[in-house]
């Protein structure tokens, strides 16, 4: 799939680097664009292209917050929760998102249109609170802007065919470390 769809691009990406393996993040990014999340097949294919084992590719992908290893909605909302945004009301913003979409943090709407995530510092603290919608920053957010954003995104993706694949509740972020009560 990756090789079919990106036939013309893969070699160019690999050639940017002195060592092939450095192309893993760019290829994971491209692969995720194809299907919204990184399937086992895509990870295997990247491994074949870069001479890495599938588990190695998985190990890399699972390290980074922006990669989704489980199905996600057509639109992903990442609400920054770190201090400057929290001081500017990101907690309320996240609650508003949950209420409007009828889902909790880490979940996807039933129609597959939206997934909601709380996210760590987006590096835009001067224009807090901030939401990253797909790959776009929305700064100095308030409830009115949130309504407008959700409406726009809904319209943009309403006509897209939603895949019938089971949309899981949580992406593969749940590798909670050993966290016994101290």
């Amino acid at each position: 799939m990756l090789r079919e769809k990106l036939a013309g691009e893969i070699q160019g990406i690999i050639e940017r680097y002195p060592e092939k393996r450095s192309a893993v993040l760019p290829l994971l990014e491209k692969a995720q664009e194809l299907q919204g999340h990184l399937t086992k097949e895509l990870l295997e294919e990247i491994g074949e292209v870069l001479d890495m084992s599938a588990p190695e590719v998985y190990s890399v992908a699972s390290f980074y917050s922006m990669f989704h290893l489980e199905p996600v909605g057509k639109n992903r909302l990442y609400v920054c929760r770190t201090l400057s945004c929290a001081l500017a009301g990101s907690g309320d913003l996240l609650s508003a998102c949950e209420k409007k979409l009828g889902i909790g943090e880490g979940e996807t709407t039933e129609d597959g249109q939206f997934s909601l995530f709380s996210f760590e510092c987006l590096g835009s603290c001067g224009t807090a609170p901030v939401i990253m919608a797909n790959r776009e920053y929305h700064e100095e957010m308030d409830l009115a802007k949130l309504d407008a954003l959700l409406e726009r995104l809904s319209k943009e993706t309403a006509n897209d065919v939603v895949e019938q694949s089971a949309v899981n509740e949580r992406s593969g972020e749940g590798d909670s470390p050993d966290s016994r009560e101290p």
Partner: protein
Amino acid sequence: MSEKYLLRYMGQTDAQNLDYALEHGAYSALKKVLSEMPPGEVTGLVKAAGLRGRGGAGFPAGVKWGFIPSAEKRGGKPVYLVANADESEPGTFKDRAIMTYDPHLFIEGIAISSYAVDAHQAFIYIRGEFHQESLILERAVAQAYQAGFLGKDIQGSGFDLDLVVHRGAGAYICGEETGLLSSLQGGRGEPRLKPPFPAVVGLYSCPTVVNNVETLACVPWIVNRGVDWFRSMGPASGPGPKIYCVSGHVKRPGLYELPMGVSLRELIYEHAGGIRMDRKLKAVIPGGSSTPVLTADEIDVNMDFDSLGKIGTMLGSAGVIVMDETTCMAKALANLTYFYAHESCGQCSQCRQGTHWIDQIASRIAQGRGNPGDIEKLYDVVRRTRGGPTIEMIPAEPGATIGCSPELFREEFGTVLKPETLLRILDSEATEEDLGAVTGIMPRMAGQTICVLPMAVAAPVESFLTKFRQEFDYLIENRKSMVEGGFELASA
């Protein structure tokens, strides 16, 4: 308002266009360097200017470049330059503005610096969330290639340089230079032990310089305006123009480019307009979330490396987070401890577990579920998580380093290193043999972690607890905050 150099075009996008940038002097420093200055002279100039790294540690850039082994010693290995654009320290948002509004200044800085260290391949490692900015950079890089400021035989000088924009994918720890290099090599962004330092063993095991965006953006200005001009701004120990990022409870949050060493009070009350709704100031984190917090009584301090170091905190990445009287300090702390627990890479067991333990305790206190003795427990877990002083900080300039004083080093290493070795290390004049001697004592440094993340979490925890102890005690005793309102924790 003082003149701007790094954010001249703030708010306008004209300079994204090469023609506009050229009309306003872009790449003139690169041309000058390529036609008039041997590489060593460029390094000497940056050293003489006293340019210290703007990413957090404040290490002198020219000295860092000087660590790159000579061509004979490299044995044919190439040198790489990596621009660290992984800006992810909470409270910091300056590099994004440089890349957005003056991408050619940044690229010119990369080209000059690469020339100085004999690198012919450079990378910009930009955090994946900055997708728009990465596209701006890609366009600017393409323009620079076309105009002969990148690529083969730049401006007929014989100097070649390729530059690749590489996006990360969301991981705080990739801002740590060895984590960044692991990531760029196609791995998990896990830091590794230093030494060897990247200058000797870096990207693809080759000598590598890693510099922050703002640091690199200063370089063309130093070439054009000279050492005296650069040194005319701020203290001798770390001069130059500086971008301060102000966020939180101020009337005008944003970026303020000012001479190094502006007073924190002036920054908050004059430039950022004071506290929103004219409330009372309670606390300020001066240099990004990993720097110890200051109380409202401590803001008569100059925002430079040494002045902040003297009062027990750091300039860090100059991410100033302002909190007013409505802020519950326990909630603010728990917000940060969650961040570090989430961002621990998990390699070192005391950090992997300790950051989560710290977060659990800090969160339960913030939620009014704290137990008597929790504060002592927090101090204890922080101490154990942090372990000994991290060895990677040794060659950095004393006082500018994360939480470590030279005295601490003396105590820690003085018994196992020759005094003269120690002195050279402390004076940033370590030889390869000195670094080897340090490597030799590594096994004795039991209990320490690979990178400084545990120190980064220790800074807010210890300073919040110490400076706002009353608030934490009250919360544990009364199961509610002294502060009405405030913000809700986004994570429970």
